[in-house]
């Protein structure tokens, strides 16, 4: 009984951490521009696919990972520079639609270059499951959890302690005032796209050994990550983490205790309930502006 519960919990936390990482990416761009970047899932996909392709050419794994993160960051910068920036005077909704277009474009591009097949990335430190109290967890899941934790700490330091991070937050709160204070808001937007692309790539590479990767892996993960971000309150880092974990654990528990046929419905019911009572999400503050 308790081993069973523990297994569901491990499963939930692993999936939840992935959703949380994706949700964080949404939050960064939202913070800087109030834009929801629906190409976030594609950053994940590019990170994973790129690593697979580079490992395939014989590069050692760590080099391939660094290169893949760099490629994805460039993709993020390019997305901002060539698709989002030219429309900077447009409304937020228009820019959101542009990101949807970009996500379709990126999927098509990867499909052309690397094909439609699924690919597997070898786990970072073996496939031997670790047994804890009768339940098992894969070493790769620990990697996911550990790196998620590191990223969360690093991001909170970045936003609260560094000038650049504070500039991003300032731009988010009031772009005009930020400009008057000498902040180059265009540059801030560029940086935030690059940063969130890097984050997406890291998430994509971390999960590739668990979920496998293909040109359309970003659709589902992107959507769940978005839900996690909304659940926790858009723009809030802690919110994205909490939202992701709640979503993942709810799914696993529903599959285990209720029925696997309804496992996708249960978390959505929870989300509706939470958003009904807390429209700005768990950690969102400015209720009237939020989803």
């Amino acid at each position, binding site marked *: 009984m308790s081993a069973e519960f523990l297994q569901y919990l491990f499963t939930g936390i692993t999936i939840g951490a992935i959703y949380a990482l994706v949700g964080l990416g949404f939050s960064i761009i939202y913070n800087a521009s109030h834009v929801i970047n629906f190409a976030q899932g594609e950053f994940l996909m590019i990170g994973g696919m790129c690593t697979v392709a580079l490992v395939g050419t014989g590069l050692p794994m760590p080099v391939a990972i660094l290169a893949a993160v760099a490629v994805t960051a460039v993709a993020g910068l390019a997305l901002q520079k060539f698709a989002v920036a030219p429309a900077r005077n447009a409304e937020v909704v228009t820019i959101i639609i542009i990101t949807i277009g970009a996500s379709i474009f990126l999927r098509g591009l990867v499909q052309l270059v690397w094909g439609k097949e699924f690919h597997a990335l070898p786990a970072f430190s073996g*496939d031997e499951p670790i047994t804890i109290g009768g339940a*098992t967890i894969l070493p790769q899941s620990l990697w996911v959890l550990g790196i998620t934790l590191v990223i969360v700490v690093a991001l909170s330091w970045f936003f609260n302690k560094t000038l650049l991070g504070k500039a991003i937050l300032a731009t988010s709160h009031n772009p005009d005032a930020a400009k008057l204070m000498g902040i180059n808001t265009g540059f801030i937007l560029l940086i935030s796209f690059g940063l969130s692309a890097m984050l997406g790539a890291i998430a994509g590479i971390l999960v590739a050994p668990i979920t496998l990767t293909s040109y359309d892996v970003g659709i589902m993960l992107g959507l769940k990550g978005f839900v996690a971000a909304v659940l926790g309150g858009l723009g809030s880092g802690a919110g994205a983490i909490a939202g992701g974990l709640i979503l993942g654990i709810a799914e696993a528990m529903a599959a285990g205790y209720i029925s696997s046929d309804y496992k996708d419905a249960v978390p959505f019911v929870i989300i509706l309930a939470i958003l009904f009572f807390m429209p700005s999400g768990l950690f969102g503050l400015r209720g009237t502006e939020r989803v």
Partner: protein
Amino acid sequence: MKPWSQIIGSLTLSLVALSPSAWAADNIKIGSFLAVTGPASFLGDPELKTLQMTIEEINAEGGVLGRQLELVHYDSQGSAGKARTFVKRLIDSDEVDVIVGGSASGETLAVIPLMERSGMPFVSLAGAVSIVDPVKRWVFKTPHTDRMAAGKIFAHMKQNGISQIAMISGTGGFGKSGLKQSKEVAGEYGIKILSSETYGPKDTDMTAQLTKIKNTAGVQAVLNFGFGQGPAIVTKNYKQLGIQVPLFQSHGVASKKYIELAGDAAEGVKLPASALLLAEQLPEGDAQKPVIMAYKQKYEARYNSPVSSFGGHALDGLMLVVNAMKQAGSTDKEAVRAALEQTRGYMGTAGEVNMSEKDHLGLDLTAFRMLEIRNGSWQMVN
């Protein structure tokens, strides 16, 4: 000088334009619609390549009934709506003699009424039982059905003393149909399905479902009916949880990709598949071996990619039609249809085909072989 060169030019042009159509009048037109691009392209791509390769080869040997074969092909992208449009075009404006095509079950089912109405002999390359059950006058098919796959697995389980199993299946079309067919035939083999779990086609973790199965008392084996990456993740999770009872997969994973994706976890997994996968391992004297080896060598030499059972279905479909035309001695539609129905003892890549008025598929369980994955490769088991 100038007018002359213009006249000669236009003459040559019209000659060039005329010659193919003058040719085409005598050609036997084979119509086809396949999902060459889109999500089901892994089906349509090898199917089209196989049709092109085989037709070229038949033409080089003098064609059929002294006439050349001509392939008229459209890419349906796996969409039922597009398939209907293309089939109408094949029947009405291309005036083909016969249609071999339909990569996926959905597009095949959508065009059956058109074939029946206009009396067009049609050989489908899709899996669903409902294509030929109940029997339709003009519709035939070549691949084995998921019901047969389930039957083969259950027969193997029974032989090995397994009678209580759990199932985990995908919620996509293939998994759903597989689950339904499995439930229907399980009783015939004395198999009891104690628990049945599902997962979505894009799910990334199935440990919760498998934990539930692990804790179900009395389960002697687990059967996973699914397609794509799902079964590979199930296999990995299965190993992670250390479930000891044997894992069976369906013919949906019968490709090297599955072994590559699931890695070590795939060791010991058993599944039914067409003989094409273990061409080299078939014993000498197996009647299917020469057919399969010939196709495999030609295909792999020409396209430099491994054969799949899907391409084999296209080869079987085309050859059935060609044989029927030879048998009938004409391309008259009713004569070809009747001859198709009379097919006896045709050895194809999917097995021996024996059609009848009541059976427009003509395969039996021997068409499937049980395989086990050992050392990253297929091994035949009995």
